[in-house]
């Protein structure tokens, strides 16, 4: 075991994948010689050469389009989109091509492409470096959507994603690249080294897609969340002294609905938390599905805790961010009857 932050864990996953399988290539803007603006691909070009860790032009559509062609020709591309806010120029290649290829060719063609992209705010990035568009991709049939909340899962899920013959959009909550974050920006930053999930095996392992993770057991209410919000939810439950069961969805598509409904059927109450805007977001799917399966067990309305239906404002990010207060208010609403 070693101590790794999320950046190192992701780097280790790509390193191991490239070492084990010569068909794995990494590509993206500034990922090569420079090692990526968040350093996630640091050292990979030095180790595997500029033909397997490839700097690309600034064209997200071109990156994803060429990655699909490489995938069809036997490579296993891991494409980095520098910020999730910049994935939209490549949206058509994801929705119309990457997601559809296996289906429309009746399985004769497929492209095992993993798209890595940092998401989320709380880093003073303003409205174009803070978005969480996972709900959009989850709506597109044919795409797997993943968001880890810690270094251990990040490495294991990324290795599983790279190995998957189906495409994955892999969201990396950049606020917790260097350490867990409980939602309080005024507290001194803590690193992953002190966190149990900062203990990461140096070697190969995978965390299978499609499995949620119960990060804390509890009986009074279920908090369904993922990414940065897992840590905010844990802190909120502690602060409010609520016996909450906290589930890290991890794999948004395919969704491990059973783990969620089992918990809600037990607690009878549910709070859903994500950083993305609320309206027509992924939390709505969680709420709708849980309501369909747990209706008769529910003792209070399912609550959604989200970012507001606004862009992510530079100066007001802590007013936008769904912090502990917003979760605690939702817990109170979910627990009253």
């Amino acid at each position, binding site marked *: 075991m070693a101590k790794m932050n999320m950046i190192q864990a992701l780097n280790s996953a790509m390193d191991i994948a490239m070492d084990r399988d010569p068909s794995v290539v990494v590509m993206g803007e500034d990922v090569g010689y420079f090692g990526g603006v968040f350093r996630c691909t640091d050292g990979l070009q030095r180790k595997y050469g500029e033909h397997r860790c490839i700097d690309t032009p600034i*064209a997200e559509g071109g990156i994803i389009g060429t990655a699909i062609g490489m995938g069809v020709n036997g490579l296993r591309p891991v494409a980095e989109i520098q910020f999730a806010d910049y994935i939209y120029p490549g949206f058509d290649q994801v929705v119309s091509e990457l997601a559809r290829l*296996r289906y429309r060719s009746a399985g004769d063609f497929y492209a095992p492409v993993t798209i890595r992209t940092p998401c989320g705010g709380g880093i003073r990035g303003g409205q174009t470096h803070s978005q969480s568009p996972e709900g959009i991709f989850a709506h597109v049939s044919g795409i797997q959507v993943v968001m880890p909340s810690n270094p251990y899962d990040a490495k294991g899920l990324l290795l599983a994603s790279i190995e998957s013959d189906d495409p994955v959009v892999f969201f990396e909550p950049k606020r917790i690249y260097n350490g867990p974050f409980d939602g309080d920006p005024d507290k001194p930053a803590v690193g992953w080294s002190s966190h149990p999930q900062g203990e990461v095996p140096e070697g190969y392992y995978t965390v299978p897609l499609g499995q949620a993770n119960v990060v804390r057991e509890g009986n009074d209410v279920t908090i369904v969340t993922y990414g940065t919000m897992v840590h905010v939810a844990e802190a909120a439950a502690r602060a409010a002294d609520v016996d909450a069961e906290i589930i890290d969805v991890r794999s948004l598509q*395919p969704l491990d609905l059973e783990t969620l409904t089992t918990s809600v059927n037990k607690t009878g109450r549910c709070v859903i938390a994500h950083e993305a805007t609320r309206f027509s977001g992924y939390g709505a799917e969680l709420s709708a599905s849980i309501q369909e399966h747990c209706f008769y067990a529910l003792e209070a309305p399912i609550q959604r805790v989200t970012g507001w239906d606004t862009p992510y404002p530079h100066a007001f990010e802590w007013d936008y961010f769904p912090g502990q207060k917003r979760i605690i208010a939702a817990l109170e609403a979910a627990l009253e009857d």
Partner: protein
Amino acid sequence: MASKQSRLHVPSAPARPGDEPDFSYLKLMPAGRLGRPDSHVKVNETHELASGLVRVLDDNHEAQGQWDPHLDAKELQVALRHMVMTRIFDDRMQRVQRQGKISFYVKSTGEEAVSVAQAMALQPGDMLFPSYRNQGLFIVRGSNLTDLMSQCLSNTRDMCKGRQLPVMYHSAEDKLFSISGNLTTQYPQAVGWAMASAIKGEQHIAAAWIGDGSTAEADFHHALTFAAVYQAPVLLNVVNNQYAISTFQAFAGGEQQTFAARGPGNGIAGVRVDGNDFLAVYAVTQWAAERARAGAGATLIEHVTYRGSAHSTSDDPTRYRPKEEWAAFPLGDPIERLKQHLIANGDWSDARHDALVEELTEHVTACWREATSYGTLNEGPHLDASLMFEDIFEKMPANLRAQREQWRREKSGD
């Protein structure tokens, strides 16, 4: 605002229904005029090839100049056979669409030389990324017409398992990529495929086809940029058939500049070729393939041709262009031109041609009969509709399994 006159330039059509056809806008050149430079030539030395027009067959049906590929009679007869087959196939499929046997069809009439010559000039290991108007590629690579028809019928033998619109064929074993309904998306994919071939140190190259109108899409630019940066071994073809549904090529940017010129302008070689001249298309394809295989980089090839038919069975071209336009097209009909060349060479005759047409017509009829025996859209046998839930992912996730169950209950309620 309404007061002032608009100063916006809007391209005006050369001719509308009722007008005399007018192709004076087409920059032409006599056969044999352009020289054939070494295929390793620098990008900036292809400006002339990109603004001119490579032609081999002259008005007397004779081959002229350095671009003559010097193919023997056998090969030319095979080519003619493929082109005639393509046209008869198209005509038949159009007819069955009119009869309501298939939902939709797209003909390539008048453009047969492009697909047939290029498929013949490339190697079997090369990967082809067709548009919906490249049926000739499938025919040359030996696709069974019954299979193509079955796809159009979405029947029990449909290679797409009923999921795609007619003509959206593919063949993994013949290295023909799955056709997309979304324009130009295959362009960067072909570049990526070619990059992978180079990364793997292989000799296979890729080729992709789009129309003139499709060059305006973002993926055209993505493909050219990546092809230029990595000098990818790929042929990027623009089939300029003068129309994009109702809009003529000026609306795609053909008024100020040739499409081939986008090549050198963006850092790859460019060649403009007479798309109705089988020999010229064959030779240019050989040249570009040689260039790509040698690692000298990609080529953008503009094929100047004419869309002889409607855009698709959903279109009515008499609304926007003169009926007589095709007959007036200065580059003629590719089949007629190759036929006359063979005859001029003493390698073909009207009688043999008529026999060929009859033979292939019967073949197409037989294939259609066989294809319909596997079912049609309306008459069985039908594919199992539960196929609708498969191949979205390699393994079916829970939500899809549940929905398939729900669908079964819905059906059994019959």
